[in-house]
């Protein structure tokens, strides 16, 4: 077990540092501002007035997207930097599972990000009124998948290129997939384009309209899994090339 968790522990040393966790502290005040703004605009007739359940769902999604953006950028930077360290290459001569050099850092980032998401969701629940009939499971699941996608896709980009370039690509893909999805008709069938561009915005829009389903979230999860596999292959290929 130690041999599998070696790089996870080594990565955790970095990701629990204050400087690493600090950007996550931006999420609560930004989220509070967004919730206030949505309520204020709704009352003034300048925006959509959401039912309490929809406001809660929207808050979950806002939190998830903010965390995903931060996590994705940090994953790109961290994975690229971690893998390019000469110490990391020399550590391959230790009796450790070689593939753990890829999933160890990922798991460390996922641990911190999931903790941040969990705390944020708990804060939202404490702040907003909620009925007992609220569909907790699907809403929390669909709002959590973007975070998993951000970690996996960030790791793929981080394994492919330099940290800065990877982070730039991540931000572009995330914004494009969010905006294009938000303007689509949620009632229309999911297009084949969702298999090329992650249906991030579409998943969010579907969650806010009823009746909704998890098909877009499942496609997003598939994107995450494919990114993870591709990232592992790129990592192993780069390791073999030296």
């Amino acid at each position: 077990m130690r041999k599998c968790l070696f790089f996870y522990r080594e990565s955790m040393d970095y990701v629990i540092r204050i400087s690493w966790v600090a950007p996550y502290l931006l999420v609560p005040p930004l989220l509070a501002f967004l919730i206030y703004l949505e309520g204020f605009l709704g009352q003034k007739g300048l925006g959509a007035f959401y039912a309490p359940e929809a406001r809660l769902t929207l808050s979950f999604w806002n939190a998830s997207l903010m965390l995903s953006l931060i996590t994705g950028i940090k994953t790109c930077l961290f994975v690229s930097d971690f893998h390019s360290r000469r110490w990391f290459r020399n550590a391959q001569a230790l009796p450790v599972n070689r593939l753990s050099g890829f999933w160890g850092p990922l798991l460390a980032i996922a641990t911190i990000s999931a903790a941040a998401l969990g705390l944020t969701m708990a804060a939202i629940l404490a702040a907003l009124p909620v009925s007992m009939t609220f569909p907790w499971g699907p809403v929390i699941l669909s709002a959590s998948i973007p975070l998993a996608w951000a970690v996996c896709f960030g790791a793929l980009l981080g394994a492919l290129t330099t940290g800065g370039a990877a982070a730039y690509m991540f931000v572009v893909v995330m914004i494009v997939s969010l905006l294009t999805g938000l303007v689509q008709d949620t009632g229309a069938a999911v297009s084949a384009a969702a298999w090329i561009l992650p249906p991030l915005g579409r998943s969010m829009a579907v969650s806010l309209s009823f009746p909704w389903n998890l098909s877009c979230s499942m496609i997003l999860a598939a994107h995450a899994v494919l990114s993870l596999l591709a990232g592992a292959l790129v990592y192993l290929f780069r390791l073999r090339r030296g």
Partner: protein
Amino acid sequence: MPPGITIKGYSDPPRIPELDLEVNTGEFVLLVGESGSGKSRLVRRLAGIEQSGGSGLTIAGGLPGSPAALARSTFLFQGDNLDRDREVVQQLVRRLCLRGIHRRDAGRLVMDWCVLLGVTDLLHRKPADLNLEQVQLLSFAPIVLWQPGAVVLDEPLSNLGAAARTEVTGWIGGLRGHASVLAAVSDPSGLREVADRTVFLTDGGASP
């Protein structure tokens, strides 16, 4: 006893046309070659970090990079054996834990060893804050505190002052009894006296 390190028909053209070398258990072989002669690459290939292109390398009874080989061998590279940005003690303890030593025992071993060396004040510092000699000395901990079956060292005396060289030479000499030790160096002085054999990398391959 079978040799702990076997190099058969190894080539790294144009630097090393062909190299055949066996390091028996309990033997210390010094591989001497000029800077750029392919020594470090050979060490990395023995560690399985770099692909050897089908050359006949075996270490500790396994192919380079195989779990069996990595479990019984230890490597000291020319630099960057420790991460520059994290506490030394944490890194050394984790490395010993990988060898099956309990965390508490590993912590005690590292501490006792550093007391012996008189470097306890360095344990809670990062390699980036230490000088090259201190880092090189501390990098020896996983080799000295654990009994590996095979040890491969790349320029083990570089960065060391006279006193530290004597200390490290003693450690390497002490490994001879139980491990196959191969040290790649450009300057054999200091180690040649304790080595069982010295092999020179020349243009035409290896010469004793």
